[in-house]
């Protein structure tokens, strides 16, 4: 057999095997979406926990593989039921994006728990299966490949029989097709939801365990990629479509496998996100649907509660700013100033998120992408073109505004939570492009020796200098944003957030104002990212990750959506609080996740109220 043909077959088998795992993940997401109308962001965490449970059983407890699968299924099934309890059932009467945000919080908590218990480092997962490989006509198939294929097909058959011939399976299908009608047949939808979550979690956990076996390693951060890829596969096949998800998973696996063969391993994750965005924009109902418009929105509306926001008079805000400016004269502790500097820089990002998500109602989970664009723009301008820092900083803001808006442009036709997913994907694409565009970004190595921030030629390196610089940037950003918000623009944005159809009926060109919101948001975020990069003097594709995006969204929810003061308060609170309890430094993300869940559940309008 010619070499290229053998490579082709090998890659096909690889693709199908990995695709099988994506399919298992996607089917779980499809079940939950179908029954509960929820995109479960904690699904990736369940997958990761499945992998860890498998790892503990095999390497620590030396259990046989069959028993291990049983333990994984039971633990993950219970976990799924728990997620339904916290993430869905208690939030049934909340804003409809609330459950989605809650599952993000749950996923934060689960990922952190695993990191705390097992350390963030990858654990080796030796494969207990024999290493013999079958040679079929020059194509080699490993035992793990066969196992994954067998489990994938087996589960597919069991699932089919379950849905077709059991009472609870019927209830699941009926609820997915028409929730109200199912209730009118006497179906208890809460129990059906719980069953769907349990089943989905079992499939997800087994998928995670299989991937652990396949790559011989497990690590806590595998959850995010897995969740997003499962989602891409699910979307490809149609959100609530189970057979579609299986095909979507296999297609994604094949695309990745061929793509890696053609372009190299670092491109692996890019394909999933490009598919994700392309499907969202071009065929939001998936490959197998004839309808071109997005499916009826499962999570309409934004996360804005009716409330009376707490407002501070202008002199109060000025007083706070003055106190912050004078602080270094009273507190000299460089560590403390550093923490507050971080708070100011994250506060800028929070401002940018609260503008686009809170004021204009376009939930952004991709703000890290804007930070990265800003940081790289300014770094390249100073390093390669030797621009002065001040000019590069401003240019970085403008470049991010333009580039960022163009990137999000295709997602303007999406509404509500689809925007959240699209921006998440766009953020990831930015990351992947940075990782792979070696000529420009120096790839994995990142950019080093960034010049420190300067102001009119004066180099700012001392903690209090950096503190003032970042604080002034924050204040300028806030002034800029405030100026926009008090103009008719602010009113127009809020009208779009409240009801885009009514807004459009009164002559508001939605695309224009979404573009303005994203541009202004990206401008502020880009400057913050640029400054942060020069402060660190080093950036790479991991400086700003999706964790940053979600953390900043948490700050915004904590302070109150659309509330500028709230955004800064949220940023300060989430940056400073974990530091107050020094012993808790390791638990900070756990704290963030819990904060997010608690706010959504008990005070959705945030501390200061949404505006």
């Amino acid at each position: 057999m010619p070499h290229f043909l053998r490579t082709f077959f090998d890659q096909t088998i690889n693709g199908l095997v990995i695709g099988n795992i994506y399919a298992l993940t996607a089917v779980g997401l499809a079940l939950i979406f179908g029954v509960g109308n929820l995109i479960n962001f904690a699904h990736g965490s369940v997958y990761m926990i499945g992998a860890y449970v498998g790892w503990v059983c095999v390497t620590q407890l030396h259990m046989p593989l069959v028993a291990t699968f049983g333990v994984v299924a039971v633990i993950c099934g219970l976990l799924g039921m728990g997620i339904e309890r916290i993430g869905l059932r208690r939030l049934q009467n909340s804003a409809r994006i609330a459950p989605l945000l809650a599952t993000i919080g749950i996923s934060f908590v689960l990922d952190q728990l695993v990191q705390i218990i097992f350390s963030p480092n990858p654990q080796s997962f030796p494969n207990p299966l024999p290493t013999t490989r079958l040679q079929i006509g020059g194509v080699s198939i490993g035992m793990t490949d066969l196992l994954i294929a067998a489990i994938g097909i087996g589960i597919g058959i069991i699932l089919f029989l379950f849905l077709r011939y059991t009472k609870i399976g019927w209830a699941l299908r009926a609820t997915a097709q028409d929730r109200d009608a199912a209730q009118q047949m006497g179906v208890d939808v809460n129990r059906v939801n719980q069953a769907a979550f349990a089943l989905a979690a079992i499939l997800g956990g087994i998928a995670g365990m299989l991937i652990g076996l396949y790559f011989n390693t497990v690590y806590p951060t595998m959850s995010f990629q897995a969740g997003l890829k499962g989602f891409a596969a699910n979307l490809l096949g149609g959100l609530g479509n189970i057979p579609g998800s299986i095909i979507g998973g296999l297609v994604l696996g094949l695309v990745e496998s061929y793509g890696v063969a053609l372009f190299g391993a670092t491109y692996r994750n890019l394909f999933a996100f490009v598919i994700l965005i392309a499907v969202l924009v071009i065929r939001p109902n998936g490959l197998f649907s004839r309808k071109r418009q997005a499916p009826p929105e499962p999570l309409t509306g934004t996360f804005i509660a009716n409330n009376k926001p707490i407002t501070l008079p202008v002199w109060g805000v000025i007083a706070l700013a003055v106190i912050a400016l004078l602080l270094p004269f009273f507190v000299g502790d460089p560590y403390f100033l550093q923490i507050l500097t971080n708070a100011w820089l994250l506060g800028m990002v929070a401002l940018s998120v609260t503008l686009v998500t809170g004021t204009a109602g376009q939930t952004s989970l991709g703000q890290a992408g804007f930070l990265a664009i800003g940081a790289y723009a300014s770094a390249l301008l100073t390093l390669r073109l030797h621009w002065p820092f001040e000019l590069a900083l401003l240019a970085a803001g403008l470049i991010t505004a333009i580039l960022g808006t163009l990137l999000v442009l295709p997602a303007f036709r999406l509404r509500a939570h689809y925007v959240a997913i699209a921006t998440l994907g766009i953020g990831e694409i930015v990351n992947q492009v940075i990782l792979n565009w070696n000529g420009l970004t120096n790839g994995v190595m990142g950019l080093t020796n960034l010049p420190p921030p300067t102001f009119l030629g004066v180099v700012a390196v001392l903690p209090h200098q950096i503190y003032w610089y970042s604080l002034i940037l924050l204040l300028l950003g806030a002034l800029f944003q405030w100026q926009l918000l008090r103009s008719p623009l602010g009113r127009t944005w809020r009208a779009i957030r409240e009801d885009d159809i009514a807004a459009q009926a009164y002559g508001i060109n939605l695309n224009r104002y979404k573009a303005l919101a994203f541009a202004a948001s990206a401008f502020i975020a880009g400057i913050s990212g640029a400054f942060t990069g020069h402060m660190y003097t080093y950036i790479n594709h991991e400086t700003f990750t999706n964790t940053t995006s979600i953390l900043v969204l948490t700050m915004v929810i904590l302070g109150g959506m659309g509330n500028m003061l709230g955004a800064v308060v949220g940023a300060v609170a989430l940056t400073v609080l974990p530091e107050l309890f020094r012993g808790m430094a390791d638990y900070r993300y756990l704290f963030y996740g819990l904060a997010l869940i608690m706010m959504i559940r008990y005070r959705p309008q945030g501390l200061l109220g949404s505006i």
Partner: protein
Amino acid sequence: MALLEVKNLSRNFAGVLAVDKVSFAVKEGETVSVIGPNGAGKTTLFNLLTGQDQPTEGEIVFEGQSLIGLPADQFASHGIARTFQHGRVFGNLSVLDNVLVGAHARRRAVQSRLPLGGLASELWAALFRPAATKAEEKALRQTAETIIARFGERLTPRLQQPAYSLSYANRRRVEIARALALQPRLLLLDEPTAGMNPTETAEMLAFIRLLKQQGLTILLIEHKLSLVMQLSNHVIVMDNGQKIAEGPPEVIRNDERVIEAYLGRKQRLDQPAANEAATVIV
């Protein structure tokens, strides 16, 4: 020439004709009502006439210009304003801001014809607040307050209250005020008195009558037929997506087809032969 001319308008939802070859015309200054039982296609018709939905076929001509294919915001710029069946106020915006959003299409910054002109002029106006923008905003605010004042004590004391805190009837009023802020050439009212008690309904009737007297052209969907009979120049009756009758209110009121559409047939059909039925079913 008619202000609005609708020709053979159809909307097909996956094989179901929600609106089926509907034609009619509305002359300047007229009030025309659309009535019909639930599911007759009235709201779909409104959605088509305001660009929220695109017709499968047919023509919408407004002041001699075809509006087919334009996005909803362009319908508004042409001077077509609407209210919504279940009320769609901007909940967290104040009453005044709600009405000011209605005036959006009249703002100068919005009207730029250059490709990115609207974008740039909005940004410029927001960041640098030229005197002209300030004056414009002030004028719009005054107009908005005047419109709100037309509802008397119902809304004026609540100018700065968020719309979500209003009663149902007040939300409908805010919606109408918002539509008037556009200074529309044609006003479409979708059940303006739904959920209102008799007193509030009577008030709304008087209000719409006043608008009519001032020369505003109105297209009205309404279930309270006495209101329709008192306000309309002519009435269009829809059933199953089709226009089944059109005429002056007193004629429509006694039209057999209309009564049948609402109350159902007087007599059951004779029992058909089984095979005859089969041909209908399949």
